[in-house]
């Protein structure tokens, strides 16, 4: 993980680039389920994939596998966290890391 850390951030005018929005729209989102725990993997939209897992690790492993197939990103959301993007080993797949 020696690759340079990148941040998803707004441009100087506060606007996001179309490319970064496109990446987030087409990404697989991994995020905590509401209520009694567990994690979810979701593609955005009405027809997209949506699955639930017991642990974050399982959810991430599944999401990465699915993302490999369509060369999309995996975005991992954790509550109350500062967002960063970290280059992964595989091109086209990125992982959002939230420092504690």
């Amino acid at each position: 993980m020696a690759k340079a850390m990148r941040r998803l951030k707004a441009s100087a005018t506060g606007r996001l680039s179309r490319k970064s929005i496109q990446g987030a729209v087409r990404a697989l989102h991994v995020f905590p389920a509401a209520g009694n725990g567990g994690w979810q993997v979701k593609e955005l939209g009405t027809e997209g994939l949506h699955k639930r897992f017991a642990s974050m690790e399982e959810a991430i492993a599944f999401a990465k596998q699915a993302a490999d197939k369509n060369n999309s990103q995996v975005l991992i959301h954790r509550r109350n966290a500062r967002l960063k993007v970290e280059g992964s080993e595989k091109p086209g797949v990125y992982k959002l890391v939230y420092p504690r």
Partner: protein
Amino acid sequence: MSAPAYEDSVFINCPFDPQYAELFPALVFTVIDCGFVARSAQEEDDSGESRIEKLYRIIASCKYGIHDLSRTELSEFGLPRFNMPLELGIYLGARKFGDAINRTKTCLILDRSQDRYRRFISDLAGNDPKAHRNSPRRAVIVVRNWLRNARPQEQLPGGEDIWKRYRAFRRDLPLLTASFKLNRNALEFLDLTTMINEWLPLNPPRR
């Protein structure tokens, strides 16, 4: 990036206060889903240009206008909020006194109830304002039906279909805004329109 075509541009004249946060994205989504370009005074932030000059420029470049008067009411200072009626007046003035292109303008006037305008802007009698009753679903359907009449030769998605996909978009919006650490209720207009434009191809209307 080239400017959107006059015939495709829809100027959305509405308040930008938190109480309107449920209606504004619904209007923007409907306009884009119907194949038009949503335009707003919020789309640019050039301090070198006065707000009224910016409004003149955007209004001149839009064939269509949606003017929501539903928040024309007394402010905390006991004075009426009159920006929306003023912008509607500019729009109607451009249609009446403008050049041949501007005389092709057409507009939709919205309010929260059908006849409320008679109490504060009765000169609009005959312009047939439509009521959205502060309901985003109702606003989606009214705007869609108006745009349908604007382009009768084209097949637009149905109002209920747009509403269903708009709700799906709203469910996805927290994940999108969280990806950029943004407040979903304080999105830049261009960020919102880009998100909608990128999201819609993944969720096409039922034909």
